[in-house]
């Protein structure tokens, strides 16, 4: 407890200097809260404008979209677009190790694992000329900055990063 002082007839621990400072701190705190709410609306914590990210142009062998910011234990997805004739895609192992893969649509026909990457291959219909879209639903396990690579072996590799909030 603070030491009480005498104000008029009252014995009270009033401290005007401290009170003024804490009012100021409170106003700063309000501003921070407002900024965080605004950030949340914009998607700084995921699921919004600021979180959307992509790599690769539409006609490349593989291009993909993902969330730049996401949260631990909360589902997010990687949307991969495989160009004409491409039926396999590799994702770096270091990235997938920190994710729980909930589903891959369509189901891959086979998975090959190497030291650094997992390669998923998909069965295409006879008409192999149209691009196909693969959605990988993942749930990040830990938190922190994560970097990964998505690519088609021998053709192209895109690096990307994802910030995972706790």
């Amino acid at each position, binding site marked *: 407890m603070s030491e009480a002082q005498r104000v008029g007839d*009252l014995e009270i621990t009033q401290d005007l200097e401290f009170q003024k400072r804490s009012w100021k701190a409170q106003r700063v705190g309000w501003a921070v*809260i407002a900024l965080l709410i605004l950030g949340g609306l914009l998607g700084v914590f995921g699921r919004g404008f600021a979180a959307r990210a992509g790599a690769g142009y539409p006609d490349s062998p593989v291009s993909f979209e993902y969330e730049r910011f996401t949260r631990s*234990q909360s589902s997010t997805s990687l949307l991969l677009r495989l160009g004409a004739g491409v039926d396999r895609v590799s994702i770096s192992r270091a990235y997938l190790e920190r994710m729980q893969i909930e589903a891959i649509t369509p189901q891959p026909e086979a998975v090959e694992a190497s030291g650094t990457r997992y390669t998923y291959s998909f069965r295409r219909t006879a008409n192999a000329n149209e691009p196909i879209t693969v959605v990988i639903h993942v749930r990040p396990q830990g938190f922190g900055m994560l970097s990964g690579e998505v690519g088609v072996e021998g053709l192209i590799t895109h690096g990307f990063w994802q910030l995972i909030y706790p």
Partner: protein
Amino acid sequence: MDSVLRGLAIYIFLLLVFRIAGKRSLAQITTFDFVLLLIVGEATQQALLGDDFSLTTAFVVILTLIGVDICFSVIKQRSRGIDKLLDGVPLIIVENGEPLKERMDKSRVDESDVLEAARRLRGLERMEQVKYAVLERDGAISIIPRDD
């Protein structure tokens, strides 16, 4: 380990947020404030326990919360500075029947709040009958009536 850290993080976050919100925010619990508290509790609960339904985790989280609370109360007892920082200080808002405007504005209390407290606690009718009104650390208003 995870659940202890979660408990700790939630405790400190809530402490900070309610300190920033100011003492008046949830001092007089209106029906809506009560609902708001329930929703805050609901939002907190998921993050505290995750998808772990075990008794052990619930016990660990509860022990963490209570333990941190005990720690803080001991620290507050020992250090004046930290006590002020965490709980704030009382503030005189009416002195000899005169409302201290600036202090009241900054604390988001108005004269009708003081009059309400005066009526409720002391059965007073007018501001001039109030010798002191003090905005206490928990956001309640105490009234000291004039002697006559």
